[in-house]
């Protein structure tokens, strides 16, 4: 009889042992939605819409209008792709939140901040899609300065709303560091890496002051390092969240056997 005793497991999960195999499959699918979103959105923005390199911050109205007129169909397809895929980001954030639940107090504060940050990130991403789609729409009759304004708005929303994502990251990072189990669900270095990658995002606050150079929205630091840091974080997190779901599944199987 003594051999059937379940292994000791820390953490306070009210739903321990209650997750069905189908739910675990759904959970893992949600976690994979993140990398899928990242790759496809990158294809939509860079490959299809031709936003790498993007229309420069120092371009005049005529040059910006010409960019949108010349790329009208490409930008439409790219932005519609972005709008089709945007919701996957909050689905992914939910998969993270549910992992966080497994080692969190009853108030669920950090997982909730993380999830709201993920939902808001979806919102601002879709807003960018709508603004850039509108900029390319009616390009033959729209005054060039209006296109310039829509392009500006798109980039301002894209860069200057970064704090919603930073809050998502910081909540996740602090949760990782606060997980006191002997073998935490996510390795502690991922928590530190998250906090650093989130801190990197603050460079976008220099963007409105510089129309050329590394701090402009097309610049090395704002676009490639800032956005690169986000992609690295999202892939890293996806990897360890999928691993955490698998571990939770293993632990539950052992417990209920």
């Amino acid at each position, binding site marked *: 009889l003594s051999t059937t005793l379940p292994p000791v497991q820390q953490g306070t999960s009210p739903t321990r042992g209650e997750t069905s195999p189908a739910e675990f499959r759904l959970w893992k699918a949600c976690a994979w939605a993140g990398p899928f979103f990242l790759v496809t959105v990158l294809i939509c923005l860079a490959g299809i819409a031709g936003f790498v390199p993007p229309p420069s911050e120092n371009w005049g109205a005529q040059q910006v209008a010409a960019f949108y007129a010349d790329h009208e169909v490409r930008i439409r397809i790219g932005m519609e792709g972005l709008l089709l895929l945007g919701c996957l980001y909050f689905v992914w954030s939910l998969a993270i939140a549910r992992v966080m639940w497994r080692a969190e107090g009853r108030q669920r504060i950090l997982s909730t901040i993380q999830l709201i940050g993920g939902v808001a990130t979806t919102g601002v991403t879709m807003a960018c899609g709508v603004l850039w789609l509108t900029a390319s729409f009616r390009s033959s009759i729209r005054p060039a300065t209006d296109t310039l304004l829509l392009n500006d708005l798109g980039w301002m929303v894209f860069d200057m709303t970064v704090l919603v994502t930073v809050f998502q990251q910081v909540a996740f990072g602090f949760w990782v560091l606060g997980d006191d189990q002997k073998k935490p669900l996510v390795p*502690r*270095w991922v928590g*530190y890496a998250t906090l650093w990658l989130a*801190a990197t995002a603050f460079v976008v606050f220099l963007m409105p002051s510089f129309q050329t*150079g590394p701090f402009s929205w097309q610049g*090395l630091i704002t676009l490639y390092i800032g956005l690169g840091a986000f992609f690295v974080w999202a892939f890293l997190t996806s990897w360890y969240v999928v691993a955490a779901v698998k571990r939770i599944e293993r632990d539950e199987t052992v417990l209920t056997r």
Partner: protein
Amino acid sequence: VTIAPTETVAGQKGSGRARRMPGEEGTWVFIFGDLTVFSILFGVFLYYRGQESAVFANSQRSLNEAFGLANTLILLTSSLFVVTAVRAVRRGANALAGRLLVGAMVCGLGFIVNKGFEYGQKVSHDLVPTTNEFFMYYYVMTGLHLLHVIIGMFLLALAFVLSKRPSLSDRQQGYLDGAACFWHMVDLLWIVLFALLYLVHRS
């Protein structure tokens, strides 16, 4: 019999010393990440200096090296305080550690005040970020560094709180070491910044 465990602990410490890494692994992910971003900034600065060497050389002459040198000495002193404080905590001299950490924080405050005077003097001479590329980088890089000093002050305050505890868990010791390492990084970055912005001339 009572000595035996002490010997074992001492023996473990001795054998572990060669490989011991201060702080947690993650601290170093953070620190090397930060150093990478600053290295890229330094590279960008050098690139633009190469493009406009006359503007950069002239602007550099209007910097006051005394401010920079004072801040270098202030930060080096604070780093000495911090490393001595960490050693003091390890030896159980917590009261001393607390005083040393307060000393380090006073140095940090001195750095910030000194930087404030320096910025004030520059602005009064109409040397602002929009003056030219050099001053844009001067303000951006020293500003980002100042932000790190402020974050470092919070971490030193955390270290101070930890030094008041009678004993530290491994995790807490890791946080203490990590905070100290972050402060040394702030110091290291300033030394490079000081050299790059104030001292290095194009021959």
